[in-house]
């Protein structure tokens, strides 16, 4: 992807961050161009969620450089970031009896001024987003009464309603059944292809990553271990080193994509 180079998209150079004394990111280089889906994979505690929080302006300050569309993130107000970048968090939080439509409408927040009420255009966008995410049927139900998987679809719809140039997904499908997972990632694929949205997705499912991601970064202990297309990155050696787990790696005969199967430690020898 040519757009991944240069100053456009998300550009991360030698990014460092620590919680107190404990370093979490120790010099990460990464880029997300327009229209591509980039996967971020790594074991628990490797710094994936921290990277999402840094890039969405939740955690500050950081060492090194991170730019959004050519502008240094440090110099951008939360509102400016929210206008071009949306997040689908791992564990969304809600309060009170807001229904799904109202929560999706909150995605219009960075585009509205002051006390403004959502226009018909905003409401149309919100309903469109709910429909794309298969959540229109529970538009008027309180979010707190929905199942975890349904809530994730509502939150995905909110991110779409934000009309972002960049989308950060933090394990967005952890509570979804495979049908809704496939529907979500198909949607994100077409969002990238048709709208040019640049996507960075934190994923646990290696095969979902192989199916949908244009490029992959393997993250371990705050460092990038390997990066590139899944066909190059998903090797036994890379995955073994990243996850400390034996895997069987093959090419999926049907799709030509990589196929990764974790192996039980008891199976050894």
């Amino acid at each position, binding site marked *: 992807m040519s757009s991944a180079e240069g100053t456009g998209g998300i550009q991360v150079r030698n990014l460092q961050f620590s919680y107190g004394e404990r370093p979490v990111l120790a010099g990460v280089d990464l880029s997300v161009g327009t229209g591509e889906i980039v996967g971020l994979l790594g074991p628990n505690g490797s710094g994936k969620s921290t990277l999402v*929080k840094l890039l*969405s*302006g*939740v955690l500050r300050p950081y060492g090194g450089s991170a730019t959004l569309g050519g502008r240094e993130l440090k110099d951008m*107000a*939360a*509102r*400016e*970031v*929210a*206008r071009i970048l*949306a*997040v689908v*968090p791992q564990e*969304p*939080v*809600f*309060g*009170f*009896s*807001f*229904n799904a*439509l*109202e*929560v999706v*409408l*909150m*995605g219009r*927040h*960075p585009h*509205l001024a*002051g*006390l*403004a*009420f*959502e226009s018909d255009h905003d*409401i149309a966008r919100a309903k469109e987003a709910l429909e794309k995410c298969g959540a229109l049927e529970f538009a*008027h139900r309180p979010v*707190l009464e929905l199942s975890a998987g349904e809530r994730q679809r509502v939150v995905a719809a909110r991110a779409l309603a*934000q009309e972002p140039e960049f989308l950060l997904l933090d394990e967005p499908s952890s509570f979804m059944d495979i049908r809704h997972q496939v529907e979500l990632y198909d949607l994100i694929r077409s969002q990238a292809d048709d709208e040019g949205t640049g996507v960075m997705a934190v994923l646990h499912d290696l095969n979902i990553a192989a199916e949908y991601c244009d490029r992959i970064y393997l993250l371990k202990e705050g460092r990038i271990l390997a990066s590139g297309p899944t066909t190059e990155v998903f090797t036994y050696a890379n995955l073994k080193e990243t996850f400390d787990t034996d895997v069987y790696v093959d090419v999926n005969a049907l799709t030509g994509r990589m196929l990764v199967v974790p192996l039980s430690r008891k199976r050894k020898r």
Partner: protein
Amino acid sequence: MRTARKPLTAAGLLWGVAILSAVLAGSILAGLSAGGGEGGLKSLLFPGEIDDHNARRILLEVRLPRVLLAALIGGALTVAGAVFQALLRNPLADPFVLGVSGGASIGSVLAVLAGLGGTGAGMAFGLDGRMVFAFMGALGALILIEKIATVDGSMSVYTLLLTGAIFNAFSGAMIYFLQSIASLVQLHDIVFSLMGHVPSTGYGTVGVLAIGIVGTVLFLFFHARDYNAMTLGEEGATQLGVDVEKIKRRTFVLGSLLTGLAVSVAGLVGFIGLVVPHMLRLILGPDHRMLIPCSFLGGASFLVLADLLARTIILPGELPVGVITALVGGPFFLYLLRTRRTGHEFR
């Protein structure tokens, strides 16, 4: 039971505000027309027919300022509750339950002891030293309680409630202590500040409170959409473009200001900020663009009526209005505590 609620529009907001304004107007009329002694509403409406100057004077110089004061105090405490609840994502966060009122009452009593307020000197144009001290006490208590209740960056609702309860017990003891070293004149002010009581003050105090409270409520109202986003948690709100630290700071300061102003005049009037926003959310939905202005009007109506009850129920005596709000609010608090699940909505 649940009908599909349409997203809030400007017209919807105007309807809500109009209806609650009518409720408030009705409450004020009721508050003016009843009470001990002469001076019914008739004397104002038909000044020619009823030739009683005393009645008019009671109405205009005693009852009207008191009713207006009750409205302002009720509105202030309710809006303070509504914004604390948005910030903490917790329907139990009332200034009294959190212990903020307790902090304000310590400040208020200290001001009386220092000769800076109450019936003595220190009153100038309705501005009262108690207001400043109560505000500082409220803010100090809120910052302290938030620090204590936050463990590893997150706040457990039970720690918060427990801290508030302990702080209330502490501030009660503090006030009993201060009471024991106070003079007889000061004692009168202190006792009322403990029980919760809407006094009959001059229009000076009403004017100062009206400017302070209405101005603060309007300011908070302009942050209403930010409060909606805050219900998605601090992270979620940031990712929607809310300057979370700024909102938190402003809510702490302005919520404390509302509480301090109310407590400095009326003492400990509890639970209004808990009962009224909850009822309004059930009827009008949780959107803060509706909730904040309607909380002001609804809370104002509630305290005007509670005060009406307080001064008429045991004629010729008078009940502290805090007794009435606590008798209604205490059981309501327990009901909320029992029925709300301790799942996501309480974290």
